């Protein structure tokens, strides 16, 4: 099966080469960071986590969202998703890989990363996050690979894979819950200290992930012979619609609790992202852009005519993905540090090398995704032929 990554059209090779070029730039910047320390990033004593950890948080959601195609197919025998479960699982593989890389590039002493295994610490949520993320990566590689191999041979998947498939469903929920617990259990970080965080993370993940999957399906239909089918895409669109509405609802719940209770600590974070605090307002344009896109996407998705029209659906999915990427992949993590524990407002802005590393990791993720999708699509094309 693996050999299919080496045969492809010129377009396919161009895609791989351009992704590798971006990876190379990111890797160069990472070597620079490695020799000079994290001082080359925009992070500081006060905002001690930045885009790296924010990307990690967002991508855990993308990875978890594979469950949105796996669950209907395997638990409810929703056959229409049979064609795209592999796309969901391979998307999860590349997303978790990016998550792990974002953790590594964020470490001050990456060569000591294995200390987490050498000194296992069950009271640290980060220890559990390491367990669930690696577990999820292996489950998806094993399941995806075996299901695809069975499909190629035209046989039922081997019986030992089935329990792993069922395990992957609660496991997907666990990765985002544990990731939310990284934040939701810290005293003194008011924007993070909210019991609804895991639910909020899951809702936004189940909107962002499937919207990316829709866009990927449309891309594949345009550039390959693989067609996910209108029904599958429309069903995904329905999932995105509900998840997006729930996601917006959850954020509004946060706004209510903070402002009706009038507790300063709870309001600070929201005031900072929407209006700025003490004249510091670097995040507000992003937050408003995310808000406008979120409501715009919700409007399109709620309108059946526009949801079924592929052009408007594409716009809606792009808006959902970008809006939630801004909310989770930029704002959520950074705004948790504002104001600081000593009530100073310190802002963060990523540096150029930091941005290059971020883009480099994303490119590496998409490179892996391209290889995995190439295998899956080649096999599906061969079977269709």
């Amino acid at each position: 099966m693996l050999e299919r990554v080496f045969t492809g059209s010129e377009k396919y090779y161009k895609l791989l080469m351009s992704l590798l070029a971006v990876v190379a730039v990111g890797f160069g910047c990472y070597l620079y960071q490695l020799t000079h320390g994290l001082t080359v990033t925009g992070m500081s004593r006060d905002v001690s986590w930045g885009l790296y950890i924010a990307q990690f948080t967002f991508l855990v959601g993308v990875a978890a969202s594979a469950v949105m195609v796996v669950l209907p197919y395997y638990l409810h025998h929703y056959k229409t998703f049979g064609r795209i479960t592999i796309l969901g699982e391979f998307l999860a593989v590349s997303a978790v890989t990016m998550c792990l890389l974002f953790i590594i590039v964020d470490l001050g002493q990456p060569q000591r990363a294995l200390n987490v295994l050498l000194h296992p610490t069950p009271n640290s949520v980060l220890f559990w996050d390491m367990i669930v993320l690696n577990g999820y990566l292996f489950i998806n590689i094993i399941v995806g690979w075996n299901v695809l191999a069975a499909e190629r041979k035209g046989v039922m998947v081997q019986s030992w894979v089935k329990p792993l498939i069922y395990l992957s469903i609660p496991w997907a929920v666990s990765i985002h819950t544990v990731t939310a617990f990284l934040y939701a259990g810290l005293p003194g970080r008011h924007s993070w200290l909210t019991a609804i965080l895991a639910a909020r993370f899951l809702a936004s993940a189940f909107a962002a992930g499937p919207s990316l999957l829709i866009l990927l399906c449309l891309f594949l239909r345009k550039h390959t012979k693989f067609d996910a089918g209108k029904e599958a895409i429309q069903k995904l669109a329905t999932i995105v619609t509900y998840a997006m509405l729930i996601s917006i609802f959850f954020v509004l719940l946060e706004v209510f609790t903070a402002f009706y209770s009038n507790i300063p600590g709870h309001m600070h974070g929201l005031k900072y992202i929407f209006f700025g605090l003490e004249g510091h307002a670097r995040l507000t344009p992003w937050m408003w852009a995310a808000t406008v896109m979120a409501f715009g996407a919700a409007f399109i998705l709620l309108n059946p005519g526009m949801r079924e029209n592929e052009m408007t659906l594409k716009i809606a999915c792009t808006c959902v993905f970008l809006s939630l990427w801004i909310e989770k992949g930029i704002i959520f993590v950074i705004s948790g540090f504002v104001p600081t524990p000593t009530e100073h407002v310190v802002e963060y802005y990523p540096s150029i090398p930091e941005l290059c590393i971020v883009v480099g990791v994303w490119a590496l993720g998409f490179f892996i995704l391209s290889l995995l999708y190439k295998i899956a699509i080649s096999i599906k094309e061969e079977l269709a032929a």
Partner: protein
Amino acid sequence: MEDRSRRSFLKIGGACALGLSALPAIKVSAADVQSVFSPAPNALTGKKWAMVIDMKKCWEKGKEGCKDCSQACNHVHNVPDIGNPKDEIKWIWPEHFANAFPGQESEYTPEEIASKEFIILCNHCTNPPCTRVCPTQATWKRKEDGVVMMDPHRCIGCRYCMAACPFGSRSFNFRDPKPFVKDPNPKYPARMRGVVEKCTFCEERLAKGQIPACVEACKAKALVFGDLDDPKSEVRKLLHSNYTIRRKPELGTEPNVYYII
């Protein structure tokens, strides 16, 4: 002859790898290994080290802009003076009342309190969130005396403890600190780039029978160090005879640094 196929070799190899990888997990569940070291005969020993900071003494008896405590600490511990707030390392430093005790101030707070600076440092909390989150046990609460310890050699630099500390007491070496240490103290190790550090209540001095450097350096005697577990200790006497406050007591971390204002 036994079956020596590649398959069986791989099976045995795999089983061995699995066994080895399970070793740390087994170690964790095994009983704690008792420390083989005993404290030096002249070491200061306490069950629950704490500090009482009398800000009135600091303001009244100390000179304007006195930095004796932080300078002593910085020198003893090779704390670098990087000179920009982004990368700076702070163990003990001054903050205004509204910043040290957020939410406690009002528009009628006496001018002398609102405008003066308070000394803040690691609170060596009884329930420290920083040690709870560390994935490598590079920071931990020492059972014998309650000092929140830090092992910069085990730290992987994930900075989870910095996110967890509600007092901003932890610093990260964003860059190599050594060039920024003007007058290095060869008796105390320097840190490397990429690890977290903080006040350790001078555990290295306690072990030699010395009180913390900041306490020793304060000419106004505003900083008092002692054992909360000992009813006759000076800190207990001060807590008994003065109304004291702690930083963010509502978070339940139980800070062990008390303030008289």
